[in-house]
């Protein structure tokens, strides 16, 4: 009995049940509609096959991933130091936080037209949009990380003679790592969400472009394939990020 139980829990925990349920509901729902309206899983897989054999899906993935990674890493490079400074220095926080608390509620989609206007139709505007989507969750979490540092660690460092500067780099920054990491994860999901918006206008390739332009050919199955690919990329990217975090940042409290 116990063995059986443990197998059942294992299956439950693996999430397989969730996927099977989703497929069932989807297939069932698709029975009532035409494939143009709601394609069933098999039609979608066939549609995806077209995209794979023609090579467009793979190319789109590469292009979109490239943009996401570019925007995301630039976002981290900007948002982490800024967040650390805003969290640590009162004067900077007074100046910067109102600005931060205003713009973090304005979604990236709101800026599409402006960014096209300012940065042109090339890569810059798309990366800029992703950058914008990434920096807010990273900054907000980094600031929270700095502010939740165990103050006795700071006092311990100071009692051993460490200057403010040294304390900042050897105590505050390492203590904020788990929050920064959470911010980076949220930033990555923000970047992937934002890629569709970024590629909706003035793009000639990418998953967002695929999803947006498939409507022109009434290829609902391609839209579905694109959506699933995006979800899968996000899912795997987050898994990979967490794996790397737990492997290399374990000592800083990343789990």
């Amino acid at each position: 009995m116990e063995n059986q139980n443990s197998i059942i829990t294992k299956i439950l925990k693996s999430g397989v049940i969730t996927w099977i349920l989703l497929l069932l509901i989807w297939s069932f729902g698709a029975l009532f509609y035409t494939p143009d309206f709601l394609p069933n899983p098999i039609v979608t897989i066939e549609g995806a096959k077209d995209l794979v054999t023609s090579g467009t899906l793979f190319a789109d993935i590469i292009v979109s991933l490239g943009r996401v990674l570019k925007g995301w890493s630039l976002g981290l490079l900007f948002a982490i130091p800024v967040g650390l400074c805003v969290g640590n220095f009162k004067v900077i926080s007074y100046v910067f936080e109102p600005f931060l608390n205003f713009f973090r509620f304005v979604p990236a989609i709101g800026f599409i037209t402006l960014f096209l206007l300012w940065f042109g139709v090339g890569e810059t505007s798309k990366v800029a949009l992703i950058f914008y989507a990434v920096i807010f969750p990273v900054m907000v979490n980094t600031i929270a990380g700095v502010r939740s540092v165990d103050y006795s660690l700071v006092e311990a460092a100071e009692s051993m003679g460490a200057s403010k500067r040294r304390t900042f780099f050897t105590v505050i920054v390492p203590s904020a790592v788990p929050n920064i990491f959470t911010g980076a994860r949220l930033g990555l999901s923000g970047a992937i969400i934002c890629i569709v918006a970024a590629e909706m206008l003035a793009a000639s390739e990418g998953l967002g472009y695929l999803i947006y332009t498939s409507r022109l050919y009434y290829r609902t199955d391609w839209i579905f394939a694109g959506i699933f690919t995006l979800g899968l990329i996000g899912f795997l990217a987050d898994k990979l990020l967490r794996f790397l975090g737990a492997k290399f940042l374990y000592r800083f409290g990343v789990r």
Partner: protein
Amino acid sequence: MYIKLENINKNFGNFKASDNVSFEIEKGKLIALLGPSGSGKTTILRMIAGLEHQDDGNIYIDGKLVNDISVQDRGIGFVFQSYALFPYLTVFDNIAYGMRVRKKSKEEIASKVEELLELVGLEGLSKRYPDQLSGGQRQRVAFARALATEPQVLLLDEPFAAIDAKVRKELRRWLKDMIEKLGITSIFVTHDQEEAVEVADELIITNQGRVEQMGTPVDIYRNPKTAFVAQFIGESVILEDYEYEKIKGFSKKENTPKAAIRPEFVQVFPAGNRQEKSSADMKGKVIHTEFRGTSVELTIAYENLEIKASHQIEDFAVKKGDEVYFKVTRLYAFDDNNAYTLINETLKDNPEMYYI
């Protein structure tokens, strides 16, 4: 005097954490700041460290006025209640932290860390992280880390509070031995009397931001100077309103209406075949017993009073409901400010009859 506090005042908003605190500590002494929570003992410790700043008054360390010297330059070692070890650094790097700040050479750091690890009995654990250590081991690392910068003064905030009871006793003795061996002037904060008495050379009793009394444990135990100390030290029964007049051998002392009687001041005899009757004997009934390891604390009802007595188990067996004879050898009579030791008048002539 090695450490001197002069008329220190400190307020947190409306809360008076230090109220004209003054005391002096000799070099090499191990001092306990003892008091109930909120009595201002940790604030005193943190002001000596420079982690907190007094509103007025002066602090001297080794004859030097340190009011304007920051925590970084005061030359103190601080052991935090929560140890405050850096969780992302190994034991080695934790201990080396202060030496790296001081730009010591690699070889010097390595040999000093090794030496300290040996001192605290954690050889071979230098590569561990704090979360791979037990509470007692972490405490030892915190101690080693505080000593690594060779401070003039070691300050410890409730050093045993986070350790389970069994290890705590062992660690107390260890800390006392260690500090004696090093000869470093040390001050630790505690709310545990047993701990303070066992570890410290001298106690400073704090209450409501004031220093009530300073002295050796024996001195404070035997001659409490203030009403607070008389009540706080030991587990005394407090009598109000000259009730102590009802106790045989004691008469009213003018203007000192209250009295504290410690369980150790009460001797108990079996009610049956008592040989030596003394005029101080009173007859009471045991209404409660509480097991204390080698002794039992008896609560004895006498007239309308409830007196507590510490009774050695091997003397004779007592259970709830038994009638016993007892006498009180001494008590502390006190008013709002001062405490006086009163010795049982019938026992004064033959002093071998009382102890403590």
